């Protein structure tokens, strides 16, 4: 009997997992004992960290796109389709374009994050973002034409992809405007929903004095309730109203609806055991990356490491051994602190981060990793 593994989502987690499984289970796949199918609704694989650089004219969205089939081992079946229903009792997936339901023996949900601007009235019309290709391009146009006024970066929703990116954006904007001789005429304000500038206390304590030193205003306990695009104001649940000339916002995030409809979790996030990554409400289902509620950041490094754990566990299960691999919360993150310096953090469930002193070397390390990311997607790095 053939073991059928279905992976939903061809982002970092799903793609790394597919290639990892193709390597680990090559003999079984070649013998017809295992099938791995990767389902993605976009023929391209998208590397989202590129988008941070688009508003500053340093990258193009195309730099973050490659055909998914070019990145995935030939032992993996790639289906460009969209899953419209997950039936965890029948172990079947309904596909939008496919001819019939796709059965599975092992399912991995790696469906990532989507943006939910519509949850905040006025946000879509009044705000810009760099969490999408179109958003990053529109924000680039706005930044290029900005010579004076008030730039507000508002973290509207958490959890969101890449928790460091809002800090990076204001640090880069500060540096970018200084280099262009415009900073004296541009006020920058950063808002965050809780009582510090970052969800992680150690990173918040590290970033706070840098904000003060750079003359970046901070508004904490600011949970955006509405945006008025005509008046150019953003108002919080706590009653604070800010005027802006340019609003860059981190929109609320959701997963995909089929997760909720399958009873796997809420808002598209799958409830999992944070060590085994097994779904809590269904058998033979894993989730990883943004889609899994592990409490760690929704970041590419997390998806990458979790993919390795799930691959090992599936290999063990298919070979009839106890699955012993577990995820320890490992997260790596470079944090740009300007246009030519960056910091770096590494942490896990037990060990908090300790941001490295910003340096040019770390900045180039981040850019170098972004270029070599395609080796990660292929399972080589």
């Amino acid at each position, binding site marked *: 009997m053939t073991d059928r593994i279905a992976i939903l989502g061809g982002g970092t987690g799903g793609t790394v997992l597919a290639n990892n499984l193709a390597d680990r289970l090559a003999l079984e796949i070649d013998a017809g004992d295992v099938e791995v199918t990767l389902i993605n609704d976009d023929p391209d694989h998208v590397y989202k960290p590129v988008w941070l650089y688009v508003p500053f004219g340093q990258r193009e969205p195309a730099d973050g796109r490659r055909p998914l089939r070019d990145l995935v081992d030939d032992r993996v079946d790639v289906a460009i389709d969209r899953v419209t229903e997950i039936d965890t009792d029948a172990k079947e997936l309904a596909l939008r374009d496919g001819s019939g339901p796709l059965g599975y023996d092992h399912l991995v949900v790696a469906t990532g994050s989507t943006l939910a601007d519509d949850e905040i009235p006025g946000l879509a019309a009044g705000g810009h973002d760099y969490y999408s290709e179109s958003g990053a391009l529109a924000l680039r146009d706005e930044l290029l034409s900005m010579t004076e006024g008030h730039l507000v970066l508002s973290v509207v929703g958490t959890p969101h992809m890449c928790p460091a990116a809002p800090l990076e954006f204001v640090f880069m904007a500060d540096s970018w405007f200084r280099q262009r001789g415009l900073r004296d005429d541009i006020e920058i304000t950063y808002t965050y929903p*809780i009582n510090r500038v970052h969800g992680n*206390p150690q990173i918040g304590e590290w970033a706070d004095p840098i904000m003060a030193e750079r003359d970046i205003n901070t508004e904490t306990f600011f949970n955006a309730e509405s945006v008025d695009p005509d008046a150019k104001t953003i108002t919080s649940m706590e009653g604070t109203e800010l005027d802006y000339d340019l609003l860059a916002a981190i929109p609320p995030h959701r997963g995909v609806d089929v997760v909720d409809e399958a009873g796997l979790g809420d808002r598209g996030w799958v409830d999992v055991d944070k060590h085994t990554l097994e779904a809590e409400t269904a058998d033979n289902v894993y989730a990883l990356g943004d889609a899994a509620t592990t409490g760690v950041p929704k970041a590419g490094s997390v998806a990458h490491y979790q993919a390795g754990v799930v691959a090992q566990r599936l290999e063990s299960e298919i070979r009839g051994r106890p699955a012993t691999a577990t995820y320890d919360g490992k997260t790596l993150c470079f944090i740009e602190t300007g246009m030519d310096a960056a910091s770096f953090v590494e942490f896990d469930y037990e060990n908090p981060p300790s941001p490295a002193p910003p340096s040019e070397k770390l900045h180039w390390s981040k850019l170098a990793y972004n270029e070599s990311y395609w080796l990660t997607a292929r399972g080589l790095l």
Partner: protein
Amino acid sequence: MSDIDIEPTDTVDARGAACPGPLMDLIGRVRSASSGDVILLLSDNDQSLTDVSEWVDETDNELLAVDESGDDYGFYVEVA
């Protein structure tokens, strides 16, 4: 054993969530709640003791009680 006698309208179980997850889960539920609703937030994160009370102070909502009698914390928040 808790002697708190408050019947919550809704319960948010954020046990196991890392900081600031519990507070953000509470805020998310407050967004969709009606005035007068009482939301019970369950958290096992010590940071919630300061996060929740400080946030409530910033708003017109009211922290009715905090249950510290068990292994987890229970925060009863009345929505303004």
